[in-house]
């Protein structure tokens, strides 16, 4: 009860303690509590992994493309060290808000842990992936976070993305891992950028065909 009160949940007053309506409200409240990140109000990691597992099933059945983005605040430790942890919390909240403004109702946005966020974007065609990730990146970059009455900081994020495993050993950890690898790449390439795994559709380019069959021969075919 204390937990629910602390997190600002109000239980129905007109019903007595122990009644079904009251009990349902307690259960709903606890469910909500166990799936949310208390600081940002976003889905927490547990909720995210559940959503990811069901998205994998959906992709396997419907074959729709889906994108997972891992998003990490750049140099977050510097914010904390320079301005203190309360400022760090404000930055986390502001970034969460900015990210939230980028998503569609069907998307899942979660605080993955620390200064890392994660997004599931169902039905996102590979062609749009880079543009979507860029939009998220710009949105965060454009936001000034007020950490004190007269003090603002700007933060940036790095993003790594991977499309649904329309392939092998598809599992939530592996999908996250693939997106994470792209996130490392974005960090290594200088941060404040979005790196996406190359689409799984393996197209053989004209250059590759040219080399495979000898350029002159291919030129005739063309």
């Amino acid at each position, binding site marked *: 009860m204390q937990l629910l009160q602390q997190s600002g949940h109000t239980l129905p007053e007109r019903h007595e303690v122990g009644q079904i309506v009251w009990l349902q409200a307690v259960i709903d409240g606890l469910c909500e509590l166990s799936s949310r990140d208390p600081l940002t109000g976003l889905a927490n990691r547990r909720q995210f992994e559940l959503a990811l597992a069901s998205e*994998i*099933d959906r992709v*396997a*059945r419907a*074959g729709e493309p889906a994108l997972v983005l891992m998003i990490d605040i750049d140099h977050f430790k510097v914010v904390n060290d320079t301005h203190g942890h309360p400022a760090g919390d404000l930055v986390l909240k502001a970034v969460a808000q900015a990210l939230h403004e980028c998503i569609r109702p069907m998307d899942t946005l979660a605080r993955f842990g620390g200064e890392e966020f994660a997004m599931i974007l169902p039905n996102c065609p590979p062609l749009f992936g880079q543009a979507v990730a860029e939009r998220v990146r710009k949105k965060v970059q454009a936001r000034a976070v007020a950490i004190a009455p007269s003090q603002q900081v700007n933060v940036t994020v790095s993003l790594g993305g991977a499309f649904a*495993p*329309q*392939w*092998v*050993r*598809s599992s939530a950890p592996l999908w996250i*891992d693939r997106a994470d690898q792209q996130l490392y790449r974005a960090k290594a390439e200088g941060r404040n950028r979005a790196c996406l795994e*190359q689409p*799984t559709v*393996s*197209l*053989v*380019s004209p*250059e*590759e*065909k040219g*080399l*495979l*069959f000898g350029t002159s021969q291919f030129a005739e075919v063309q």
Partner: protein
Amino acid sequence: MSGSADVKAAGAPSKRARVLALTSGKGGVGKTFLSANLAAALAKRGRRVLVLDADLGLANLDVVLNLFPKITLHDVFTGKVQLEDAILHAPGGFSVLLAGSGLVEYSRLTPEVREQLLRIIETLAPRYDHILLDTGAGISDVVLYAVSLADDVLVLATPEPTSMTDAYATIKVLATQQQRREIRLAVNQVGRIGEGRTIRGQLQLVVDKFVTPTLPAGTGALLLELIGEVPLDPSVREAVQKRQLLIEMLPGSAAAQAVLAIAAKIAP
């Protein structure tokens, strides 16, 4: 990252079967023909061999082997029978697990299919020296999943441009998505001896230029190993039409000899 990358010593019989996936990209290049005859050739060399028909959507190993069992993988998947009851003894002295045409509903990679395939391989691996996975055509998720369960992968191509292109696309996907660094290549229906080597060289050239540079640094280059070339041989058609194994029906034919040579390389 993936378990497929670990390299064990091939060859000598070990406690656990070595799993070899046969795939091609393009269909109709003789994948099932090679699976069946290679299995028989390995059996001739004293190895315990199981062929798993992983072409779940469109199985035809049954047609090649002239086996029409009442019990198939479908019944195993649905829990109607035990796995053991679905294992058949094929004419070439090896075991087969057939998908059966009732498995169309498994042509999508659902978690259930993933678990079932994994479980079957894990259960049977200790009982055999070699497990051959005859995968379907294309680069679908089921095919790639089946390949990901294998220790080694053999890509089969023919000198036809469409087959070479699809083989190359398959090789590219296996290198980038499964971190494969050694892929075996067999070329079927070659017009002359040495054509397979030329094709391997050509594919390796394109791989070196377009695939290896895209692989994560420090993970090594992708190497194609030519494991054999099977000549275009009318006796193949003859055997297929009679629904018999070429290496049993016409063991002296050029194509049969080529398959036996591949077996010798896989099981020295």
